[in-house]
C-alpha cells in the first residue's frame, strides 16, 4: 500500500496544472470560480483550446483522439482541471454522445460526427427525459416513426440542459411501440435547425436559464442519423449513463470551493474578526472537508482498482461517488452563501448587462443563486434516491 504518486505521475500532474492554468483564459476560469454561468462562446473556446492540445476527449478511443492513459492519469487530469476552475469539456459531446458513437456507430457516422464533436463545432444537447419519464426513463413516449428513408419524430423532451446552445440533439425515441418498454427505443441524432423543433426555456429557482423544453412536431430525420441498431437505444443509453464513473464525484471542484470559502471567509468579518476565525464556522467547514477527503480516498481506491477489474465490472466503492459527491457539493454552496452573510440577499440577475455596480462585494452576487442551483446535483443523472435503489440492488443484492 503506497498512497504517493510516482515521479512520472507527479510530473504529469505538473504538466496538467501548467496547461489548465496558463492556456485556459483567466476570464473563463474566474467565471467558473465565482459560479457565474458560462456562455456558449466560453464553453466552445475552452473546449477548442483543449482539443487543439489533444486534451478534450481523453476518454475516447485513441483512433478518434483519445488517450491511452492509466486511470491515475485520468484522475490527475480531472483533478487539475477542476482545481484550476477550468470548464469541464462539454459533457454532452465528450462524455455522452461521443463515446456512444465511437462504440456503437458505423464508420460513416463516426467520421461524420466525431471530429466536429471533439472540436465543439457541433454543440450537443441531450434528449432523454420527458414530462412523464423522469426516474422511469424507459417509459418515454417521443415517437420516431419510420417512413421510407426518414424518421418522423413527434413528442417532447424536458430538462434539456443548454438546449438553447444546442446545434444537435441526441434523442431516445420510441421506434417500436409494441415492444417491451426497454426494447423499442432507438438512439437518434437530430439537427436542431430542423423545421418542427421548438426550444422553450425553463427558468430555475436561481433565476437562470439552464434547461429547456424541446418540442418535436413532425420533424423529419434521415435514417442515417440512427446510431447503431434500431430498437437497441436503451442499451446505448445505459452505456452512456454508466460511462462516467469517477469524474462524477467532482472532488477537484469541491476542493476548489473549499479553497475559495477559506479565502473569502478571511475577508468577511463576523463579530469584529474575520469569519474564518469563528469556531462554529470553522468546524462546519472542517466537517465537510473530512467527508471530502474520505471521498477522495474512495475515488483513489476506485481509480487504483480500475486497471485490475474486468471491463464493465465496478468497484463497489464507485457507486457511492455520485451519492456522496453531490451532497458535499451542496454543503459547500451552503457554506459559501453563509460566508457572504447579508450580501447573499440582493437578487442581481436582473442587473446583467445594465452596467450597474453590484450590491456588496462582487463575489457575493452568485453565492445564493449557486446554492439554489446546486440542489440539482442530487436530482440529475439519476436522483440520489435512484442511486440508492441501484446500489441496493447491484451491490447489496437486496
Amino acid at each position: 500500500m503506497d498512497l504517493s504518486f510516482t515521479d512520472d505521475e507527479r510530473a504529469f500532474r505538473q504538466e496538467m496544472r501548467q496547461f489548465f492554468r496558463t492556456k485556459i483564459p483567466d476570464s473563463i476560469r474566474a467565471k467558473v470560480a465565482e459560479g457565474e454561468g458560462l456562455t456558449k462562446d466560453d464553453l466552445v473556446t475552452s473546449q477548442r483550446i483543449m482539443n487543439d492540445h489533444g486534451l478534450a476527449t481523453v476518454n475516447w478511443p485513441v483512433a478518434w483522439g483519445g488517450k491511452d492513459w492509466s486511470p491515475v492519469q485520468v484522475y490527475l487530469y480531472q483533478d487539475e482541471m477542476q482545481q484550476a476552475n477550468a470548464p469541464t469539456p462539454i459533457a454532452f459531446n465528450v462524455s455522452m454522445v461521443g463515446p456512444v458513437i465511437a462504440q456503437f456507430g458505423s464508420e460513416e457516422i463516426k467520421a461524420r460526427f466525431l471530429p466536429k464533436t471533439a472540436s465543439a463545432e457541433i454543440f450537443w444537447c441531450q434528449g432523454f427525459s420527458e414530462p412523464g419519464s423522469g426516474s422511469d426513463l424507459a417509459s418515454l413516449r417521443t415517437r420516431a416513426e419510420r417512413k421510407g428513408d426518414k424518421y418522423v419524430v413527434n413528442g417532447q423532451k424536458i430538462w434539456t440542459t443548454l438546449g438553447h446552445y444546442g446545434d444537435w440533439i441526441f434523442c431516445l425515441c420510441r421506434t417500436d411501440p409494441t415492444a417491451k418498454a426497454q426494447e423499442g427505443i432507438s438512439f437518434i441524432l437530430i439537427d436542431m435547425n430542423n423545421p418542427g423543433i421548438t426550444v422553450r426555456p425553463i427558468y430555475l429557482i436561481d433565476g437562470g436559464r439552464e434547461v429547456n423544453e424541446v418540442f418535436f412536431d413532425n420533424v423529419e430525420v434521415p435514417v442515417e442519423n440512427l446510431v447503431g441498431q434500431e430498437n437497441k437505444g436503451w442499451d446505448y443509453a445505459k452505456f452512456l449513463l454508466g460511462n462516467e464513473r469517477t469524474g462524477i464525484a467532482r472532488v477537484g471542484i469541491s476542493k476548489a470551493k473549499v479553497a475559495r470559502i477559506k479565502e473569502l471567509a478571511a475577508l468577511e468579518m463576523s463579530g469584529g474578526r474575520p469569519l474564518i476565525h469563528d469556531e462554529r464556522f470553522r468546524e462546519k467547514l472542517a466537517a465537510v472537508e473530512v467527508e471530502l477527503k474520505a471521498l477522495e480516498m474512495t475515488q483513489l481506491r476506485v481509480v487504483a482498482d480500475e486497471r485490475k477489474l474486468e471491463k464493465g465490472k465496478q468497484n463497489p466503492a464507485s457507486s457511492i461517488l455520485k451519492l456522496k459527491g453531490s451532497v458535499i457539493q451542496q454543503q459547500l454552496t451552503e457554506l459559501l452563501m453563509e460566508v457572504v452573510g447579508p450580501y447573499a440577499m440582493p437578487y442581481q440577475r436582473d442587473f446583467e448587462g445594465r452596467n450597474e455596480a453590484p450590491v456588496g462585494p462582487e463575489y457575493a452576487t452568485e453565492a445564493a443563486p449557486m446554492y439554489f442551483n446546486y440542489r440539482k446535483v442530487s436530482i440529475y443523472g439519476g436522483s440520489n434516491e435512484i442511486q440508492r435503489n441501484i446500489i441496493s440492488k447491484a451491490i447489496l443484492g437486496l
Partner: protein
Amino acid sequence: MDFDLSDDQRLLKDSVDRLIADKYQFTQRKKYQAEPTGYAAENWEALAELGLLGLPFEETLGGFGGGAVETMIVMESFGRGLVLEPFFATIILGGGLLRRAGSAELRGALVPRIVAGKLKLAFAHVERHSRYDLHDVMTTARKDGSAWVLDGAKSVVLHGDAADMILVTARTAGAQRDRDGVGLFLVDARAPGVTRRGYPTQDGLRAAEVTLTGVRADQCLGTSALPIIEHVVDEAIAALCAEAVGAMQVMNEMTLEYLKTRKQFGRTIGSFQVLQHRAVDMLTELEQARGMAMYATVMSTEADPVERRRAISAAKVQIGKSGRHIGQEAVQLHGGIGMTAEYAVGHYFKRMTVIDQLYGDADTHLRQLARLGGLFGHAA
C-alpha cells in the same frame, strides 16, 4: 499509488484472519470474557506463537519488523473478532512508547519478553480533569537522588489490571497544562505505592484506576516527552480506525444478512425500500471510513506533527461519525433481537462507542482539525 497489499502482508492477513475465524466466534468470545482476567491466556500465547506480539518491534529483538500497514491489517481483523486480549494496550500503546522513547538498552531488556508473551504493558495518562488532553497532567514526578518518585491518580488505564509494567505520564516541571515538562516513566505494576482497581468497560474489555503514592519509577523515558507521546497516540488512533473498520464491516454484513432472511408481512424485510436505502447509507459510511482508516495509516508515520495531526484528526472524526451511524442503524434494523445481550451486533455497537471515546471523540478532533486550518488549501 497502490492500495494493494504485498505478498508478505497478504500472508499476514490470511493468518490473522484464520486465527480470528477459528478462535473468535461470538460464543467463544463470551467464554474468554468470563475469565477472571477478562480474556484468554491461551489466546495471548497463540498471538505470541504467530509472532503478532512482535508486530512493531525490530527483528534483531525477535520482532516482526512490521510498519503501519501491518498494524492496520492486524487491527482490522481484531475488529472483526472484537478481540479482548490486551494487544492494543501492550503492543500498540506500550510497545509504541518503548519503540519511540525507550533506550536501546531498555528495548533490549523488555522487547524479547513482550514478544514471548511474558510481559504486558499499559499506558496511564488520563486524569480526572484531563479529558482527552495528553498535556493536562497533575501527577508529579520528583527527583529523589537518582530516582524519580511519582504521586498521582490515573483513570481508565486500558488493561491496567493485566499489565506487568505501566508507562505513566507525570509532570517534571511547569504548570498543570503546560506542554513542556510532561515526563514519561516506566513503573513496575506491583511496586510499593501502586494500587490498582480493575473493572470491565462497556465493550467487554478491561481498564483500571491506578493510584501512585511515592512510587519509585524503574525508568524515565523522557522528562519532557509530549511530542513523542503524541506521535505514539496518533499511531494508536490509526490502529483504532483500522479496528473500527473491521467492526463496522461485520455490523454491515450481519445487518445485510438479516435483511435478506428476516420475513415480515410475508416477505423479506430487505424488500422494503425504506430499509434498502438505510442499508445503502450504512455502506456509504463504511466506505468513507475505510478510506480514512487507510489515510490515517499512511499518515501516522508522517514526521511533521501538524500534517500528521490534521490527517489523524480527520480520520477520527470520520470513524466516530461512521461508527455511531452504523452501530445505531445495525441495532435498529435488527429490531428487538439487536437489543439483546446474547446477539453479537450490540457488542460491535458498544465497541464502536468506546472507540469514539478513546483518544478524543469526533467533536474533539473536529475542533482540533478546525484549529489546524482544515485539510485543504495549505501549501503542501
